[in-house]
């Protein structure tokens, strides 16, 4: 499903974020990406939806080789991958409803189907009553949940989340995790970068630990492994 071979990534300023990474993630897996800040987790994630390109190495998602994909095909790749951004990346002038609906408008769903699916997913993340609010009127946790709703609303094959619970209180965090487990149970691949020892150690899944740009540990049903 996701295959990374000998990935190197050096940024324009000379910083090397990834230093030879090899990963194979199967369809339907649930994977935690752990590691200290600056270890290369975010870069690892950005490569998958092609916000960044590797300096060297190949990434294959499904049957698409990202190193050969044409620029104009990138949007279509991104539609199969729901991304929950660390900084939410909500459209500031659009309401909660409009932000989530955007992901469906892009794939040209019918207005009727959009309305139905958006309301359903807002129910899932517990924001049905905030549908008309602007992002600026929401708390950080609520904005995070809008971002999650947008990522999962079009039932992508892969959901990638960069610290989705970083700004949430414990109750909401567990609620979000429950949502992730549910969509994972439907066969969606989940890749989640996190600093939450509690979550990783409680909901046991595959753990990939990145340090200094290389994978130092890759275990099924692994532990968080770092002291906070």
């Amino acid at each position: 499903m996701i295959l990374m071979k000998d990935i190197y990534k050096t940024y324009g300023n000379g910083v090397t974020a990834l230093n030879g990474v090899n990963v194979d993630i199967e369809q339907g897996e649930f994977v935690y990406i752990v590691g200290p800040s600056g270890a290369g987790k975010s870069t690892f994630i950005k490569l998958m939806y092609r916000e960044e390109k590797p300096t060297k190495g190949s990434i294959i998602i499904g049957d698409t080789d990202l190193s050969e994909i044409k620029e104009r095909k990138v949007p279509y790749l991104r539609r199969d991958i729901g991304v929950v951004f660390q900084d939410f990346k909500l459209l500031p002038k659009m309401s909660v409803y409009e932000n989530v609906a955007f992901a469906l408008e892009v794939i040209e769903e019918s207005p009727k189907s959009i309305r139905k699916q958006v309301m359903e997913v807002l129910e899932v993340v517990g924001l049905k009553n905030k549908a008309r609010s602007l992002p600026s009127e929401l708390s950080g946790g609520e904005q995070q949940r809008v971002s999650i709703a947008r990522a999962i609303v079009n039932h992508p094959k892969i959901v990638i989340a960069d610290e989705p619970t970083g700004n949430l209180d414990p109750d909401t965090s567990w609620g979000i995790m429950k949502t992730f487990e549910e969509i994972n149970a439907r066969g969606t691949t989940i890749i989640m970068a996190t600093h939450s020892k509690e979550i990783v150690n409680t909901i046991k899944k595959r753990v990939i630990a990145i340090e200094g740009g290389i994978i130092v540990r890759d275990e099924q049903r692994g532990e968080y492994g770092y002291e906070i």
Partner: protein
Amino acid sequence: MAMRFRTFLRHVREGFKNIFRNGWMTIASVGAVTTTLILVAVFLALVLNLNEMAKSIEDDVQINTMIDLTATEDDIIELGDKIEQIEGIDSVSFSSNDDELQKLIVSMGEEGEAWHLFEQDNPLNHVYIVRALVPEDTERIASEIAEFNYVDQVNYGKDVVEQLFEFNKYARTIGLALVIALVFTAIFLISNTIKITIMARSTEISIQKLVGATNGFIRWPFFIEGLLLGVLGSIVPMAVILGGYYYLYTNFNDQITFSFVEMLPFNPFAWQLSLMILGIGAIIGIWGSVMSVRKFLKV
């Protein structure tokens, strides 16, 4: 890939919504469009009218060839034939001394009554009224006519006509240059304002790309928004032109009593100018908006 109609509707809807979402930026853009288009409109109205007036004055220039009093009827006909053969002649028409006297009486109004006395013993010459095909040829033709026999005097208001031509030449060039400069300033100012409003939205564009929107999908609402900004900005200038021109035309055109100078008629001129302003506004709006978005689509 062809866009679905409902997606097109979605883009139109988004374009309209953006007008409201961007509140002050919209007002700034529309304000810039309005201000510059008013300038362009007023200036265009002025230049086009002056141009028309100059043209009608030029076209009105005629050479009055006073025929010698001693000329016989045959001499007069021969003279007329000779004049017609000069290169660049538009028309030659004969006006007898009686016609000339009537014209004089009419043009003098009440004071002209006294001239009726001369009807018995007319002191005026017969006249050939000659028009040049190209007004600028007037001087050459006049001097050629002056060489012929039985020409008493050739009259075409030499100094005035020459100065007028000279003046018109400069006025037209300067007017045209100013209009072009003004339109370019307008394009620059408006597209810059729109650029600023869109630059403030570069994050918005990059987010849309990250969520899987194609460039076309992102561009359409901006296209509609630009069009709307241009059209909204044209409303006041159009009203100014239609209202202002109507006022001037109805109040002042009658007072300009020289028969040969007239304002361009309100209908269709003011309507045509308004449509033109609307067109300029729409094109500038779209252009400014699409050009600005283009920069940010390379995420």
